[in-house]
């Protein structure tokens, strides 16, 4: 072996080059395989991000009438609607506020041509009813509204009608949305006039004095 090297010294250099090449190939191979081993769990930890819920605030609870009496603990005594209505005959013709009496006196009513029984359920006054007669609990009132207000409901479902709070990105957090009746009183649903807040105090766009003055 040593004699061979003495005769041909260039052989040593060739062996060195071959050895270095093999080493670098091994390193490349190891990197590739280790890299694959490392990236596999990363791929697994990136599924489609789980979405937080969009919660719609529930409608008001089933209404109860305040009798004006207090129990021994000082809590108001209330009565279910059906307490009186189970013994009275429903009047299907009432659709103006001044017709109303007893507990309903003074109700501000302005909701198109609807009558009381368009929404209130004459068979069970502790619920509402849909156009097809099925009863709907008070907290689920949106189903009832959507029967007539289809375009509003469509816009609502696409996020372009109705106030909301929370996150635009549901992957990062939840969202809470208003119910129809949070903003619209079902008896007079038109949004009320309001006084604007925070009047601007800068001098930009100060209204010009009208020409007629």
């Amino acid at each position, binding site marked *: 072996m040593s004699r061979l090297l003495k005769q041909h010294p260039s052989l040593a250099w060739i062996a060195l080059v071959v050895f270095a090449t093999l080493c670098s190939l091994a390193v490349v191979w190891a990197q590739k395989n280790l890299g694959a081993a490392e990236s596999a769990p990363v791929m697994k930890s990136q599924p489609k991000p789980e979405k937080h819920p969009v919660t719609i605030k529930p409608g008001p609870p089933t209404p109860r009438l305040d009798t004006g009496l207090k129990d021994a603990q000082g809590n108001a005594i209330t009565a279910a609607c059906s307490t009186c209505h189970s013994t009275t005959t429903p009047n299907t013709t009432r659709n103006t506020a001044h017709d109303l009496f007893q507990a309903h006196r003074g109700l501000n009513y302005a909701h198109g041509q609807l009558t009381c029984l368009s929404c209130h359920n004459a068979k069970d006054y502790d619920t509402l009813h849909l156009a097809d007669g099925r009863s709907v609990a008070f907290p689920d009132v949106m189903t009832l509204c959507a029967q007539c207000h289809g375009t509003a409901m469509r816009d609502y479902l696409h996020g372009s009608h109705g106030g909301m709070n929370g996150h*635009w990105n549901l992957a990062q957090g939840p969202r809470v949305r208003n119910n129809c009746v949070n903003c619209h009183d079902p008896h007079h649903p038109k949004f009320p006039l309001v006084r604007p*807040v925070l009047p*601007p105090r800068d001098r930009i766009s100060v209204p010009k004095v009208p020409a007629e003055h």
Partner: protein
Amino acid sequence: MNDPAPASPKTPCGGNCSCSGGPASASPPPGDEGSTRRAVLKGLGATLGVAAYAKALAPLTELTKEASMDEFLQKHYKELSKDEIATVIARLTQEAKEQYGADVTISDPKPQEGVKFGYALNLSICNGCRKCAEACHLENNHDRPSHQSYIRVFEMTKGSMDFEKGNVHYDHPVPQPDKYYMPVQCQQCEHPPCVDVCPVEATWKEKDGIVVVDYNWCIGCRYCEAACPYHARRFNWQKPQIPAAEINPDQSYLSNRIRPQGVMEKCTFCLHRTRNGRLPACLEACPTGARVFGDLNDPESEIRWVLENKRVFVLKEELGLKPQFFYFFDE
């Protein structure tokens, strides 16, 4: 050119006076008289010089009170390293404590990957209550006495589309039957003219579409205010006055931290909220739900549904600035 002047002292006095004439006069030597006047003038000059120098340096002495040397030497936001921005934020937090008595948290959220923000406003249901402007005022730590806000709500005559003719100073119950209401804030233009005119590059458009200002780099020249066709930029004429209890402590460097006096500011789509996935403050405050916010790049987003299904327009489209803020009407 023969100058007669040097010869004149040698000329004998030709008048009737008693002087002997010539240089050999009895008066004190001219050198003494000259030196006295010169000394006075020198003294005067030196005094004025010192006074001018002191006046010129006066801002440096003030630096220690309101603004530190660190602030004076601070680099542009984009050139700050991670450590440097942390130092800057620590200083700003300290300043908020010293000057306003408030414990604030200043973050520096970056744009989300692949997200491009868009905003749409439903003019059919906006009732002009200005709750959005108020929410902006509170959220963004605006100067209280001036009622500063990034949002102006214009009362518009039905049939008119030119908000320049609108009235922002209306003060009566809203909505009026013959009016509609158009809130205008920064439109986050695709080609923002405010960025083009800034002489010091203190304002720029970020990856998610938000045009931001480095309040510490702004020189307050107000070119951007003049360039903006939507009147969306505001100038801090005074150091903002905010009671400590009313300061919103959730702040970020590029958005709602308390601005110094003499710099420009603008709507940032509440980037301290929206870059963390939350809705902007003006949207949450809207009682009618007239505002729609989301990611324009997400085909499932609400904002995309509005753009694809509603009659949408942008303000001053003819200027070609491509606003990322849209207006629409219901049927």
